[in-house]
């Protein structure tokens, strides 16, 4: 069998064009690509949005709030965020609404949409454990002889109708009558301040330490990493506690404490990266052209480790926030009247049985922030290095 000759006329060279080797899609810059991958990751995007919203709330929220974080009013203590209003109809048909604060057995007037109008004044009869109020011309009696407290209007037992959200104190008030929402926003400020300090320390000490150790190598590397190893043997919480005992509790101390030891993980990561990267040809090339070590580290090596640095950072920030709230929870953190999410939670634990809402809000704020940073960190890791994705 023989192959028939290919007719010459059937094949002709194509005209030479520039498009032959052109890549179909335009090249995408690295960060645009990262952003595109991050945006496609729903939880990570949600985390990012949450963090941005949190930052804005922490900065501007307290300015917009009519309350301050330290002003106390014991007559307004432990007001819940969800009110159960009673309605009294007066002789003239006018309606008045009020709710009972089961914490101090006091009545507060409210509007239909849940705004608090005033603290109602009644005649207290301590002997019989009852308080009589005159609301819309009717006798309202709060009887706290036996629990649960009963409210009667003109001698007939009244029951609350429906539920309405407290529009004055959206998250209720605490034991000292302070607005929980504004205190939470100050708590967010503290958490974010700690996050900011942790970021700075990681960037300036951690990255520099790891960069120098990794690039210098040899005895310098050994000495520097021994120091890191000594610090990293013991959990950072323990160091922070010791430094707090030394400096006395307070916001400045916690910032210093976290700043002192919080860079060791970053130093390790950066060193590891630099160790592999410094073998690259471009480093050799830069050195041949006479670049000094500082220039090589800052211009060539660190920009190439930015991915792992960012990922480590998003993992370290929540742990810094956690350490602050943990310290505040065990009573070593910020001092009153300042509030951190940790102190808010620990104060709420004492009164958890009666006022679970005081526990719920700070715990939820802290947990959501942790989720946000975790999701963002996971998302960033996938987006910066798609090969790592599992």
């Amino acid at each position, binding site marked *: 069998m023989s192959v028939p000759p290919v007719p010459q006329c059937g094949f002709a060279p194509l005209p030479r064009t520039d498009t032959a080797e052109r890549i179909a899609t335009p090249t995408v810059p690295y960060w645009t690509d990262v952003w595109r991958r991050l945006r496609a990751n729903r939880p990570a995007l949600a985390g990012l949005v949450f963090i941005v919203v949190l930052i804005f709330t922490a900065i501007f929220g307290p300015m917009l709030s009519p309350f301050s974080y330290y002003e106390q009013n014991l007559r307004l203590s432990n007001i819940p965020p969800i009110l159960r209003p009673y309605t009294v109809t007066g002789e003239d048909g006018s309606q008045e609404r009020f709710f009972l604060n089961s914490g101090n057995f006091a009545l507060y007037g409210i509007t239909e949409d849940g705004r608090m109008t005033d603290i109602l004044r009644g005649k207290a009869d301590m002997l019989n454990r009852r308080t009589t109020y005159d609301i819309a011309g009717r006798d309202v009696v709060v009887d706290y002889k036996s629990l649960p407290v009963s409210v009667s209007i003109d001698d007939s037992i009244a029951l609350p109708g429906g539920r309405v959200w407290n529009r004055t104190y959206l998250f209720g008030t605490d034991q000292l009558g302070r607005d929980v929402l504004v205190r939470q926003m100050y708590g967010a400020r503290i958490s974010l301040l700690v996050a900011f300090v942790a970021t700075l320390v990681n960037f300036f000490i951690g990255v520099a330490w790891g960069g120098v150790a990794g690039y210098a190598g040899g005895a310098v590397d050994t000495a520097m990493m021994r120091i890191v190893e000594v610090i990293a043997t013991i959990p950072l919480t323990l160091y922070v506690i010791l430094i707090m005992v030394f400096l006395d509790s307070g916001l400045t101390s916690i910032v210093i404490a976290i700043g002192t030891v919080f860079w060791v993980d970053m130093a390790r990561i950066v060193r590891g990266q630099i160790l592999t990267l410094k073998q690259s040809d471009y480093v050799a090339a830069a050195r041949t052209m006479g670049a000094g070590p500082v220039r090589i580290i800052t211009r060539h090596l660190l920009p190439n480790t930015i991915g792992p640095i960012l990922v480590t950072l998003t993992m370290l920030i929540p742990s810094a926030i956690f350490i602050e709230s943990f310290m505040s929870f065990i009573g070593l953190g910020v001092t009153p009247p300042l509030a951190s999410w940790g102190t808010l939670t620990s104060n*709420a634990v004492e009164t958890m049985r009666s006022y679970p809402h005081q526990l719920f809000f700070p715990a939820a704020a*802290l947990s959501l922030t942790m989720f946000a940073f975790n999701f963002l960190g996971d998302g960033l890791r996938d987006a910066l290095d798609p090969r790592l994705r599992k």
Partner: protein
Amino acid sequence: MTGAAIRALPWGWFLRRLALMAVTLWVIITLTFFMMHAVPGGPFVSERMMAPEIAAALDAKWGLSDPLWQQYLNYLRGILRFDLGPSFKYPGVSVNEMIADGLAVTARTGLLAVLCVVAVGVPLGIAAALNRGRWPDTGVMMLATIGVAVPSYVIATVMLYVFALRLGWVPTFGLDDWRGYILPVIALAGFWVSFVARLTRSSLLETLDQDYMTTARAKGLRRRQILIRHGLRNSLIPVVTVLGPVVANLLTGSFVIEQIFALPGIGRHFVLSITNRDYTAIMGITIFYAAFLILMILIVDILYLWLDPRIRAGAKA
């Protein structure tokens, strides 16, 4: 072990580790000692006025009038004899006694928590990896995300509210019966169970992709055999690495968990001594923790060496 096997162990590596650990411990002892002594005001300074003679007598009794270096040397000498000195707030109680007193409680909850981490975290991770993308995987990953993100003390207080106060299934405090252990152990172990589950899952997934797994399958080995002999053995190595940090985390976790559940463990003693400004107790317990952790890390290192021949080779070199 035969003589040859013992000689084959990386003794140089081992000695270097030991030396580094001794140095670490010494640095921590020195640091805590000088930090606690630099805190303004001695341990006997209080609001109550004290006659200068009494103050001088007290200082003399505890050696506080000695020069600082003398006190430091005495303290070091004490530590070498496992004597951490007296508590300054509870007369007649030594720091050793305080630690011994709390150790039983902390060790019991801590051990249960470590067991939990291994016995729950690893199987969860395996189940997730083997059912990749199906509901067990999604479920485990969701649970693990919650466990990693929500702080232990939040988990503890919320559980306390729901299960002890609302539902009354478990006591709110104390360890008088077995149900008392449930919440503290869950709160302590929660984070690390989640962490280990995630780690096991990703490590096993990576191992399952390896060529030797395909080879094992091609040889006609049974599924179970492949999974246990080839899959798990290789994928559990990273899990062993985190066991050191697990112990460390359980210790610091116990500070707050023991406070929430009112358990008389070392963590509670530690936090109490901080609020009481009982400096010798703070120093003593810190050093105890440090020594304990260093020992744990050494044990994990040895375990690691025994599990992974590649590292044995690396350590010898």
